[in-house]
């Protein structure tokens, strides 16, 4: 961590401690924008527990406290913990003290309007944001209790423990086989048998084996868009990563390819931990176990997908999932 970050972190902590008092202050307009659903089972989180809307809290210079459902409480055992993580592009702050945890072998969806920081958060997990010179961070993340943002962390070996699938499929200019075993080769695996076994297993995991098993040594770039994206998933799971990051993996695909990839993501639950960014709420509802709603660089609400979509505890979440903004 560079010395310039130290004062910023101090400032952040100062504001965090001061916000605690403000947060408990009375919210003057809890349901100013009208009631939402008539059949709500529980009321919105009240002002007394520290919540209004994000915009209100920004206007009032309060630190926003995310609503985390008890199933996802931070002190349970989790694969990935994000701890008070903030990120700045130069002077502009993109993430504001995000704290959340991703449980093992679950699919967690990050939703929110464009520019809310969900991709930034995702790309921070494997530190791809390091490629941008102006990025500074405070707070930390822990992958299986090992710190991600630490001067002692070797970024290259960290990334070997994390798989990533991008918005636009990005197969390498190599054969299908070489694409899948790319990560393994980087780890120094040379045994042909192992590579072949992993290639088959990963392609089966990615539901692509049947379509490509006869042309493993053809160029990966000859595949269709949907196949390329599944190939990228196969490549990401080949090294059995501790967590799989997906950055809007279906946004460049047609509906049929999207359905296949969604089905695949759904089938990955139980064996892989997946953190997926999407701005398609139906998709989040279909594929994920848990959903986190982000807005303006802040985590707003994080809970089981069912609860987030049916019975959110935060008004912003309710407005977003019902399509009132974003």
């Amino acid at each position: 961590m560079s010395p310039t970050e130290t004062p910023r972190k101090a400032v952040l902590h100062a504001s965090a401690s001061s916000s605690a008092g403000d947060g408990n202050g009375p919210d003057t307009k809890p349901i100013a924008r009208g009631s939402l659903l008539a059949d709500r089972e529980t009321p919105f989180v009240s002002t007394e527990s520290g919540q209004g809307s994000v915009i209100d809290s920004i206007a009032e210079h309060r630190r926003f406290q995310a609503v985390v459902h008890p199933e996802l409480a931070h002190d349970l055992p989790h694969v990935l913990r994000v701890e008070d993580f903030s990120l700045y592009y130069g002077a502009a702050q993109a993430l504001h003290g995000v704290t959340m945890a991703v449980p093992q072998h679950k699919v967690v969806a990050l939703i929110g309007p464009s520019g809310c920081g969900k991709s930034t958060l995702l790309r921070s997990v494997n530190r791809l944001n390091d490629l941008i010179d102006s990025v500074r961070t405070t707070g930390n993340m822990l992958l299986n209790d090992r710190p991600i943002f630490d001067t002692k962390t070797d970024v290259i070996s960290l990334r070997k423990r994390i798989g990533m699938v991008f918005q636009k499929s990005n197969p390498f200019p190599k054969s299908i086989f070489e694409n899948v075993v790319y990560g393994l080769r980087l780890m120094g695996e040379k045994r042909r048998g192992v590579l072949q076994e992993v290639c088959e297993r990963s392609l089966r995991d990615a539901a692509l084996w049947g379509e490509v098993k006869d042309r493993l040594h053809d160029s990966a770039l000859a595949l269709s868009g949907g196949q390329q994206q599944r190939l990228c998933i196969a490549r990401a799971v080949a090294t059995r990563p501790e967590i799989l990051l997906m950055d809007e993996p279906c946004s460049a695909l047609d509906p049929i390819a999207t359905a296949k990839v969604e089905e695949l993501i759904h089938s990955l639950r139980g064996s892989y931990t997946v953190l997926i960014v999407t701005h398609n709420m139906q998709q989040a509802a279909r594929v994920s176990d848990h959903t986190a709603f982000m807005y303006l660089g802040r985590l707003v609400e994080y809970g089981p997908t069912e609860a987030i979509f049916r019975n959110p505890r935060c008004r912003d979440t309710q407005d977003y999932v019902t399509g009132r903004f974003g």
Partner: protein
Amino acid sequence: MPSPPPSPQNRTPLLASGEPFVWLTGMGLVVGLAMVVVLLGLIVYKGLEAFWPHRVARIELTTSAQEREGAPFLVAMVIESRHKKAPGEGDREELYLQTGNKDFFGSGFRYLDADEVASISYPPDEVVIEQIEYLTIGTLVSLQRPGAAPIEAEAPGFLPALKETLAAARARSAEIEHLEKVRIGDNAARIQALRIERKRLERVAGDAPPDPAAIASIDEQTAELQSAFEGMAAEARALRAEQDASTLTYRIADGREKSIVAGQVVHVTWPNQMGFAGRLGQFFKNMWAFVSENPREANTAGGIFPALFGTFVMTVILSIAVTPFGVIAAIYLREYAKEGLVVRTVRIAINNLAGVPSIVFGVFGLGFFVYGLGGSIDRLFYPDSEGPVFGTGGILWASLTLALMTVPVVIVATEESLAAVSRGVREGSLACGASKWQTIQRVVLPAAGPGIITGMILAMARGAGEVAPLMIVGVVKWAETLPVDTTAPFLHLDRKFMHLGFHIFDLAFQSPDSEAARPMVFASTLLLITLVVTMNLGAIFIRERLRRKYATGAF
């Protein structure tokens, strides 16, 4: 009152529609294409015409011309007819004739006014004899073979005997060439090596006398090689004497006769007896002779094989030298160097390097490579050599000089193709846990491969056609040996070589017989262009295969 809306009949103004500019751009393209087509067309036409066998015309002269010429007719090949503008005489047509027989007339070409021609016929028994030194047009008289009576041209056994004699002479001259170039050449190289070894021993010993046993052994080996050389020299002399044993007698148009030895004859043709197929066959034979044979007569006749081969070898060495160098520099500039004033300055400097006159590179090559590097190599590794080895112009220094000249092309092309590799692919590789170098090596370079090869093609095309810098770093008018041959170590990087571009310059401006050289200039130019195009096609073929393998659509 509101103004009426513009009626639909109002056309868009001409300048706004851009129509004139479309025409202007079209015109620019047409002018450019026309210049290229005309230049290439001229080179192709004139270059191919040089191989087409002309018929031998017997030109009967008008009375007035007969008096001036002192002969009733001329025998010559009509190369072309053209208009000449003489002051006060108006437009007149004249014929450009190749009369051959320079040994009789002092010149092989002449002009004749078209209105001095009474009639033209093509007598079938006129022959064209290509000799090592001259081109003869005339009729055959007789063949004299050793230990046999002369055979008259009309005799029935004449043709088979002539063919047999010439075939034997050709076989013998190939044998002599092999003997002199390969065997005697090898022998001389070994004697030279022994002499250098002896000098080395003397130098190492310093003031003390060198090891007498070693010296004696060297002397003995030298004597052996020397006697072997004398044997081979005697062999060559015997073969040469045999070459001179048979003589062929011919008669030229004015009745003068001359006898030449069979070894002088390259080939004899009867152009007036050839049909179209025969002439076409001769055309391809001439073409093959041109690309496969050594030059004769101060490069104005014969083939240009050494120049073709030298150009090819130089271009290959140039590509091998320039590509890795340029690619490595481009990788650093694009991938590692931090964008800023320094990188921008370097990039501008590289681009400007492409604008430095090529002769400047030649001078630099002479100073840096030849005298600097070559001189040091000679001092370190060849201290006993009698002449400079690498300390003089040679194919290695010529290639490196051109590599230096063309490296900006490769750097610019590689940088562009690296920049075209998508961010997504790079991030994908990094996300898999690849280091930056692994990403470049395994993903970025394969994807940029086709673009890099494009840069190599441009460098090759520029380097192969360059002449000026080569003249001072190793190209010669006539090289006895090729840069690659069967003598160990097979690739002789220190040798001087011939180059097509310089060959063209030499033929066009430094030839003793510019008229004889003229068709050679066009033919050589055609060949140089063909060579460059062929090498480029080869590179394009490789690039397309790469592209199919890694089809990315980025290019």
